[in-house]
C-alpha cells in the first residue's frame, strides 16, 4: 500500500481523492474521510498556513507508517494545504481505506490527532489588519495522547 501524502497550495476535491483511493480495487469495503476547513468565526477574514518543508513530509510519513502497523489499512491519503486561505476553504484531508469501517474510522481520527500535535504547520489568523498566530490547544494534546501505546 503506497500512501499519498501531499503538501500543496491548491484546493483538493474530496470526491476525486476518495475515488482515487479505491480506483480499480474490490477489496476496500470502507473509506473514512475527514476534511478540516477554515472557520470564519470571530470576524476571521483569512488564515495563512506555513510549514517546515522536509520535516512535515517526514513527520506525516512516520505517523502514516504507525497507522498501517496499528490497523489493516488498504489505502491512506493525507493532503494539507499551505498559504493564505479564506473562510470556508478546505485545509486538510485525511482519507483511510480498509476492508471494514472500524480500522478506517480509527486510523482517520488517529492521523488527524497527530497532524494537529506533531506535524510542523503553523496558522496565522487575519482579522482585518490584525495578524495573530494561533496558539496550540491543550485539548489537541490530550486527543493525541490517548493513542499512546
Amino acid at each position: 500500500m503506497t500512501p499519498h501524502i501531499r503538501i500543496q497550495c491548491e484546493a483538493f476535491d474530496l470526491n476525486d481523492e476518495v475515488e482515487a483511493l479505491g480506483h480499480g480495487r474490490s477489496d476496500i469495503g470502507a473509506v473514512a474521510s475527514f476534511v478540516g476547513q477554515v472557520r470564519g468565526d470571530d470576524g476571521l477574514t483569512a488564515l495563512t498556513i506555513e510549514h517546515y518543508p522536509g520535516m512535515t513530509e517526514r513527520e506525516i510519513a512516520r505517523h502514516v507508517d504507525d497507522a498501517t502497523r496499528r490497523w489493516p489499512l488498504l489505502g491512506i491519503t493525507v493532503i494539507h494545504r499551505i498559504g493564505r486561505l479564506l473562510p470556508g476553504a478546505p485545509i486538510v484531508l485525511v482519507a483511510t481505506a480498509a476492508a471494514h469501517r472500524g480500522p478506517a474510522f480509527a486510523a482517520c481520527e488517529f492521523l488527524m490527532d497527530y497532524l494537529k500535535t506533531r506535524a510542523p504547520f503553523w496558522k496565522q489568523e487575519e482579522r482585518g489588519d490584525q495578524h495573530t498566530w494561533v496558539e496550540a490547544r491543550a485539548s489537541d494534546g490530550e486527543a493525541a495522547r490517548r493513542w499512546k501505546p
Partner: protein
Amino acid sequence: MTILYFAWLRQKIGVGEETMIVPDEVKTVADLIQLLRRRGPHYREAFADLARVRVAVDQEHTDFDTPITTAAEVAFFPPVTGG
C-alpha cells in the same frame, strides 16, 4: 550548521534561516540558545520564554538537552497548530 525559525520566532528574529559555524563548547540545544541570545535583542525576545518554544534537530522533534555536535540542521518554532 543551518538554523531555521518558523512562525513568530521567524518574525521576531527577522530571518527564517541562517548558517552558523558553531563553536565546540556549544554541545546542546540549550547551549545554542544561550549563544543566540548573545546575538542581540531580537534573539533575546524570541527566546525569552522557552515554554513557548519547541525544537527539532535534523527534522526530529526533541528537547533542549539534545546534543547538537553532529547536527546539520536545528529548527526553532512555537507549538504546532496544523490540521
